[in-house]
């Protein structure tokens, strides 16, 4: 934090070049975060741009309780969601799963995870299915899951960031994990 103080103070005073190191250091991880949510490189890049802009405009609100990187990442999550809302083209018209499945245990179903001679192809297929299912998650499910699983954010922070109460945050993550597990279901039938 002490290293951040120098450029932060200068940026707050209006020295926009003082903000450049923050952009250089955080562009790539922000992009990875945003593309996980938007599933689109162009939207992710726009979200990165907006995240930095919003962060700069609101540097006075950064109180140091978290690291600057953490604060910036939280801003970027909402920037990514905003890109999805603006464009709408990435909302897939996939039928919603039956809500009666919510809450049912799903880990008790055995999937075929036996190593096979074509294990590499098998692994690639699994990866593809998971990537496809990530795209089918709703934006909120994906954002909540990415924040919890990839960013390590707490449910409390996830709720604050996504305007959800604690229960809704949990349900979004549960639905995401359930759907991802469900993406592997066809592999059981093919065994």
């Amino acid at each position: 934090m002490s290293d951040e103080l120098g450029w932060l103070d200068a940026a707050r005073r209006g020295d926009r070049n003082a903000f450049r190191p923050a952009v250089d250091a955080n562009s790539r991880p922000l992009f990875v975060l945003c593309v996980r949510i938007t599933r689109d490189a162009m939207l992710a890049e726009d979200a990165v741009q907006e995240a930095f802009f919003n962060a700069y405009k609101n540097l006075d609100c950064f109180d140091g309780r978290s690291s600057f990187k953490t604060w910036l990442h939280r801003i970027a999550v909402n920037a990514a969601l905003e890109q999805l809302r603006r464009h709408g083209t990435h909302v897939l018209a996939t039928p919603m799963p039956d809500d009666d499945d919510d809450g049912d245990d799903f880990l008790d179903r055995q999937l075929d995870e036996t190593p096979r001679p074509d294990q590499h192809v098998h692994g690639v297929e699994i990866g593809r299915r998971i990537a496809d299912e990530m795209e089918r998650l709703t934006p909120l499910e994906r954002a909540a899951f990415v924040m919890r699983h990839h960013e390590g954010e707490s449910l409390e922070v996830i709720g604050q960031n996504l305007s959800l109460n604690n229960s809704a945050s949990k349900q979004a993550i549960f639905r995401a994990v359930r759907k991802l597990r469900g993406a592997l279901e066809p592999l059981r039938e093919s065994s």
Partner: protein
Amino acid sequence: MNPISDDELILYHYRDGLEPSRLAKIATALESAGELRERYRRLVALLDRVDAVTTAEPDESLAARTWERLAPRLDAAHEGKRNVDTHGVRRARAPHKQRTRWHVPIVFSAAASLMIAVAIGYQAGRQSAPSPSPLTQTALSAKSGMMAARVLDAYVAEHLRATEGVLLTAANTDARSTFADERDIAASLVVSNRLYALAAARAGDARLADFLRQLEPILIELANRSPDSPIQSTNGLRDYLRRTDLLFQVRVTQARVSANGTRET
């Protein structure tokens, strides 16, 4: 011990969202129950596979490209701030582009905390330390009350931004895949909305309290929608929004409380 659900295993995996005692019980059960251990192993294997999925990497020029686009905007933003600071005149409000929910947490617990804060703010104002003169005591009370009102306005402004987003999505999209998201947000907003209406009433802002109470039925409607709602229901919602011009009212109210929230006390 209550059976351990898969949802609890997910929370256990992240060590988040469960009481310490429940975490301890699950840890103990994992040591002794083979079936539970197997379920947990499948969860971990799934999440490991998620980690193995590669994400698109940005090209090398991303940072430079980002800065090239960003720098002129930062100059403009700084110029705008300078104009306000130097001349004390609020610059023309930029078109409402993006919700920035992150800096004002809007969750049930935050709304409840706000209620307490507003109540304390007013109570503290009434119970200010004795001062040499009644006029000073009155000024202190007024200042505490005004600060509490500013806090309320800031929270309500953010709440209305979130409400506008939910209304816009309901009015402009037929995408069934976002129903769960919007339904969850609307359900959270119902709870917050009630608390803010109560806080506004206690703060003496009857106009704001009334407006927030008017929002409740539509938020409840959105919180209870299902993806199988008949098309007439969705069209009816759009007609209602258009007929009442509710979105416009939300924006106007949001702008008003935002302006109140940034006034000097």
